[in-house]
C-alpha cells in the first residue's frame, strides 16, 4: 500500500505530464525516497496509480541504475570509479572502505548502516576522487577524511 504522502507526491508529478505513465520514473524515485528501495509490492502499487501493467513498471525500474530493487543500508555510499577518479586514486579509497566496513561493491554492512556502490562520474572531476553519501557530495578524498565523513552517518 502506498502512503498517503506518496500518493499525493505522485499525483503532483503526474500533473507535469500529459499522460500518467510519464511520471513512472518520478513515482519510483518518490517511493524509494520514503522506503529506501522499491519492492515488488511497490511496483504493483505504482502500476495501479499510473494505469500501467506491473511488467511495464518493472521494466523501467530495472533499467535505471538509481532505482534499487533490493533493500539497501540506511546510508548509500556511491564511490566514483570513473576515469578522472581512477587517475586520482579512487582505488585507495575503495580499499580503505573495504577494510573499514568489511564490504565490497554491492554489499551492505551487517548492521545495515552502509551499502557501497560504484558510480561512474559525479561531475566532480576537477576535485577527484569523489563520492556521494545519500545526497551529499565529498571531493578530493583522502583516507583520513573518509574516516571523519563516515562518522557523520549513523
Amino acid at each position: 500500500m502506498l502512503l498517503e504522502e506518496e500518493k499525493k507526491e505522485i499525483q503532483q508529478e503526474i500533473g507535469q505530464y500529459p499522460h500518467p505513465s510519464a511520471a513512472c520514473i518520478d513515482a519510483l524515485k518518490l517511493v524509494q525516497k520514503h522506503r529506501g528501495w522499491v519492492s515488488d509490492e511497490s511496483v504493483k502499487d505504482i502500476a495501479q496509480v499510473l494505469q500501467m501493467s506491473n511488467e511495464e513498471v518493472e521494466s523501467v525500474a530495472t533499467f535505471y541504475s538509481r532505482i534499487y530493487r533490493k533493500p539497501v543500508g540506511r546510508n548509500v555510499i556511491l564511490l566514483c570509479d570513473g576515469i578522472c577518479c581512477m587517475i586520482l586514486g579512487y582505488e585507495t579509497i575503495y580499499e580503505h572502505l573495504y577494510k573499514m566496513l568489511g564490504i565490497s561493491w554491492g554489499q551492505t554492512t551487517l548492521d545495515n548502516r552502509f551499502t557501497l556502490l560504484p558510480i561512474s562520474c559525479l561531475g566532480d572531476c576537477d576535485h577527484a576522487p569523489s563520492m556521494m553519501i545519500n545526497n551529499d557530495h565529498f571531493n578530493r578524498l583522502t583516507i583520513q577524511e573518509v574516516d571523519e565523513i563516515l562518522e557523520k552517518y549513523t
Partner: protein
Amino acid sequence: MEKPLTQHIHPETVPYSLIEYQKVGGYAGVHKALKEMTPVEVTNLVKSSNLLGRGGAGFPTGVKWSLVPMDNEQEARYLICNADEMEPGTFKDRYLLEGNPHQLIAGMIIAAYAIQAQTSYIFLRWAYKKAENELRKAIAETYEAGLLGKNILGTGFNLEMNVHSSAGRYICGEETALLNSLEGKRAIPRTKPPFPAISGLFGKPTVVNNVETLCWISHIVDHGADWFKGLSLTETGGTKIFGVSGKVNNPGLWELPMGTTIREILEDKAGGMLDGYRFRGLLPGGTSTDFLIEEHMDVKMDYSTVGAVHSRMGTGTMIILDDRTCPVKFLLNIEHFFAIESCGFCTPCREGLPWIEKILNAIETGQGRMEHLDILKSQSNYMAPGNTFCAHAPGAVEPLQSGLNYFYEDFVSHIHQKKCPWK
C-alpha cells in the same frame, strides 16, 4: 576579455536572485525577444549567429529550431533542456546550473518563444542535488514575477517549466533516449528520422538543447549575432567553457574564446602537469572523443579544428593521461563504463563493448595475446557510425582506436611482459 556566461557566477556565494539578475540586465533579452521580435526573427537571429550546440555534437542551434513546423498553431510543442551531463570528465553544465540558474531560464523562455512551445522540461542529472534546489527556487521566483506561466509580459505567450531529475544511465543524454525517459519509459534511443523537431516528446515537435547552448540565447538576443561571432578566435562564434581534469596543478573550468589553443588551456589555465608527471595525451571533450597527443598542443579548440586532427571537441572538458597512468588501464576503465552503460538494444554495442572490456582486462592482467589487438581493431570497425542504432558505441570506440594507434607499444609491452609495466 568578455565572459558573458560566467561573469555573474560566484561559486562561493549563492546565485543571483531574479531581482539581482534583472539588475545586471539578465532578462533584457527576454523583454526584447517577446516584445519586439517575432518567433521567426528570433530563430533567424540565432541562425545568423551560427551558435553551435554545446552538448558535444556542435549542430547549429538556429537550424535545429527552424526544423520545427510552425504552421499548425494549435499543436503542442516542447522545449527540453538537456542537463543530463553524464559524460565522464564533464562538469561544465553543473557550474552553469548551480552558479546562475536564471541565465538558463531566460534562455529557455526565448527558445520556447522562438518555437512557440508552451511546455518546457529541464532533464537534470540525478546527482546534481544543489543544481536541482537552485533551479526549483529560481523557477518559482520566475513564475511569481510573471515571466513564466500565462501571458508572459502581457504578450499572450504562455510557458510552463518543469524539472525532471533523472534516475541514472548515461544513455539518457542521447537526445531520443532522453525523450523516452521523459515519457517514463526505458531510455532506449529512437529511430531517426523522424527527427524530434517533427515528432519528439509524446509525438509532438520538440527541440532538445544543451544547458550551455541555452545559456547563450538571451545574450545573443540582447547583443546581436556579430557581437557573438566577435567573441571567438575562429569561425565558430562565442566563448566556450573549457575544463581540465587529471594530474595537473590547477584542474578546473574557464570561460575562454572559442579557438583557444590546447596549450594555453593546459599550461596557462590548468598550470601544467603536477611535478613528477609527464603529459602523454588527452581526450579533448569527454571519454567519447579520440586521443590527442603532444604534437596537437597548438590545435585550436573548436569543432572543425579539432575535427581536422581526427578527434572531436565534444564537451570541451579535457581528461589528461599522464606517464604514471597505464594507457591500457585508462582505456579499460572507459570501456567498462561504456559496456555497463549500453542500453542493450542493438547487438554491436550490447555484445561488442563487453567483449572489448574483457580483452582489455586480459591484456592489463598479463593474459593478452597479439591477436587480441586485431580483435580490438575489428570490433572498433564494427561499431563505426552507421552500424549501430545510436552514437553510444561509435563514441565508445573513439578513444580505443586512437589509443591503439598512439600507445600501440604500450599494448605490445603488456603482452610481451605478460604483466602491466606500470605495476
